[in-house]
């Protein structure tokens, strides 16, 4: 009761603040988008006019169907993990263990596919492994109220150690042998389009990703469960007094994040047919870029996907250029997402985190 005056002050000032925040956040995102589009258009024009210049090469790279295909392929694990992160964090559980979930599922998918000989069984195996690890994370953070950040780091470190170790034990090397991959699915006619044809001639995981993006959006915007997840992350007590178990909603959300990240990890390794476990493994920071992507996308599944495409697109262009002998250091490209997130979060600071993210919730009974 005694902080009532503060509540009132908050309530009085909040609308103004948030309006400004929303507008600011919106314009910044619009700005980033606008600048990107303008730069691309300028580059394409320059490329058209001077086909032999650097701009011409870049324009070629950008309009190449291969670039889009590469960007999509790179996006798959990142975007899946980002969707998973959105589910967990919107429910109030910050899951920074996405990297670990990608690693464990990437390895498990190959192992199961190798043992059973079925790509889709391997895929299911990867998802199951990731979901199990997410379940462990959920029990520790929700059931035993461990710190979410520390538990998330543990998930990453466990997977980082476990996957190459298992590979070493089973295959005698941190890299697994290769398994069969599933062929691309070609949509007749559409697949022959220039540039955009890449969208219709991709591995099944890309189509699965499109479905997951739409499905996640639908869950948050249209279903009661999606509202419960939002309420659980914003004001769990409100949800509890409305008669919905916060604990159950959070368990469900974290398990969903495990399933989604698992799909990403499994797709990553199965598309290549191999798990490589040297150093940071083949996942190599994709789980952390996923966190950046959903923050940049402001917890919107579509926004997260578009941010992922932006980051992956940069990487793809870089690869194409590399092949043509124009070297932009790969390392520079790789830090772009992190630079972007620092600008977005620190300077603009208007990505609105769920109010209760990171907090434990205990019913009063």
């Amino acid at each position, binding site marked *: *009761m*005694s*902080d*009532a*005056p*503060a*509540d*009132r*002050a908050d*309530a*009085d*000032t*909040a*609308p*103004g*603040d*948030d*309006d400004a925040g929303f507008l600011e956040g919106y314009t910044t995102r619009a700005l980033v988008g606008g600048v990107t589009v303008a730069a691309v258009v300028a580059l394409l024009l320059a490329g058209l006019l001077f086909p032999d210049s650097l701009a011409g090469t870049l324009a070629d790279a950008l309009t190449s169907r291969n670039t889009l295909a590469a960007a999509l392929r790179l996006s798959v694990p990142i975007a899946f993990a980002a969707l998973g992160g959105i589910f967990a964090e919107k429910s109030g559980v910050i899951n920074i263990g996405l990297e670990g979930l990608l690693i464990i599922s990437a390895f498990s998918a190959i192992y199961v596919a190798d043992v059973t000989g079925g790509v889709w069984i391997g895929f299911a195996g990867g998802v199951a492994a990731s979901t199990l690890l997410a379940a462990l994370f959920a029990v520790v953070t929700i059931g035993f109220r461990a710190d979410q950040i520390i538990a998330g780091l543990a998930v990453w470190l466990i997977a980082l150690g476990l996957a190459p170790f298992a590979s070493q034990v089973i295959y005698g090397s941190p890299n697994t042998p290769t398994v069969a991959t599933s062929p691309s699915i070609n949509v007749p006619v559409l697949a022959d389009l220039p540039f955009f044809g890449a969208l219709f001639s991709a591995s099944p995981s890309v189509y699965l990703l499109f479905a997951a993006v739409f499905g996640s959006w639908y869950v948050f915007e*249209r*279903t*009661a469960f999606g*509202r*419960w997840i*939002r*309420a659980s992350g*914003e*004001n769990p*007590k*409100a*949800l509890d*007094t*409305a*008669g*919905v178990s916060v604990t159950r909603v959070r368990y469900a959300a974290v398990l969903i994040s495990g399933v989604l990240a698992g799909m990403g990890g499994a797709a990553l390794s199965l598309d290549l047919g191999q798990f490589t476990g040297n150093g940071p493994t083949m996942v190599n920071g994709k789980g952390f870029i996923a966190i950046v992507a959903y923050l940049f996308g402001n917890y919107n599944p579509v926004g997260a996907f578009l941010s992922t495409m932006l980051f992956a697109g940069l990487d793809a262009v870089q690869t194409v250029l590399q092949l043509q002998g124009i070297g932009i250091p790969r390392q520079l490209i790789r830090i772009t997402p992190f630079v972007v997130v620092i600008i977005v979060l620190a300077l603009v600071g208007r990505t*609105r985190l769920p*109010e209760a993210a990171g907090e434990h919730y205990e019913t*009063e*009974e």
Partner: protein
Amino acid sequence: MPSAVHLDGITKRFPGVVANDDVDLEVERGTVHALLGENGAGKTTLMNVLYGLYEPTSGEVRLDGKTHAFGSPRDAIDAGIGMIHQHFMLVDPMTVTENITLGNEPRKWGGLAVDRAGSREAVVELADRYGFDVDPDARIEDVSVGEQQRVEILKALYRGADTLILDEPTAVLTPQEVGELFDVLDELTAQGKTIIFITHKLGEAMRAADEISVLRDGRKVGSVDADATTQAELAELMVGREVLLDVDHGTAETGGVVASVSDVAVDDDRGVRAVDGVSFEVRGGEVFGIAGVDGNGQSELVEAVTGLRTPDAGEIRFRGEDVTTASRRDRIDAGMAYVPEDRQDRGLVMEFDLVENGLLGSQHGTELAANGRIDWSKTRGHAQAIIDEYDVRPPDADTDAESLSGGNQQKFIVGREFERDPELVVASHPTRGVDVGSIEFIHERLLELRQQGVAILLVSSKLEEVQGLSDRLAVVYEGEFIDVVDPDETTEEELGLLMAGERPGDDGGGGGEPEPTGNADGTERGGLADRTDAAGGERA
């Protein structure tokens, strides 16, 4: 016909405490019942029993003559009980409609989607039926506190509540919103709903309720008809003895100017001018009161004086020094004590125990923390002394601040600040949310300090408090002092008009802004240093 709600012999024991002791409560259908009591009297515990949060140790809950045993709030909700918590259970970024239907969303497509049109329709229909003014599509964070409360009530009604429990519903409302709330309650009872509201405000209980039950130390000490009782009778029931609601503040020797504020202008967080050209002086041995409806710049003014906010213009002097931009620490060291309006946010660290909380503000001092090293045994003694002196309960310095009741938290803060041996006490709503017994105690202490020659700047939205305690009283409206009056010579009606922004002698016309401090102060700033010294000497 059986009562809508009958709590029969409810006893609730917690380890070491009897929170409710054989309480009987009967509430008739279609009436408003006020549950009145001091902080910690057991009101909320009793209602939590009715709401299914607690199972009673003994006793029965009967609704319309039928006995219920609630295992959880869910059971109580299903039985038609709705609780409006003091801290609203709303999700800020979601809309009014989404909040009202949360957990019971109308579905379509076999549950695969929320029927959004249907939800909105249900909310509009419900609001219309009870004549509520709410915008179903507005986000909670964009609507007023009064509207948020109406949303909470609609939420309960949407879940089929027949009996509504409101926990301290007026604590967060403006006077105007309180009036609107009471209209809402009338409309609800007219349509057959039963209302129980928890309060410690006598006036509100009498104004809104048909019947009033008073709890004290976990027991019910009486139920009275609201039309046939007086505030004095209720106050006596609450505290068990006669309370002096009118403070006889007498007079004290007025010393020199301790603090002066000249032409200060302060912006609020949004950059809107909240205080606009305010000037006043506070002398040793005087209580300078600032009255006004909340939100007219009082908070910003106090923050400027105490150093929590930098003024955009003007000068603040304390004991002869210009402290306009001085830090909090410098002001504390110079002898400025501050009882903040929000005790949980600014007064205490809730997770700290009282030993640690007692140190706050003295952590740089030489007494408890010489050479940067805290002397814990002295600090503990210091906290214990405050606890004993200011009757903080439980009297245990190892208690965490968050487990104290609001009134006891406040007594501890008041004790800590008053024991600083200050030259100036800035007391912002020092008795907000505090029970009658503690209010009286805090008032007495404040006047004792004044008697010792301390200057006191008192801000309160309770008229009887500022009027009763102040030697001079400024009325603030939209960031300006409307007038500075002698509280003994001014009636409540006159103050009410001033608080509503009616300037004295408005009909004179063309006179421009009144000179706020001109009529009350004759002293020039020249003699300030001497006088402060004199005041300081007196105290030593």
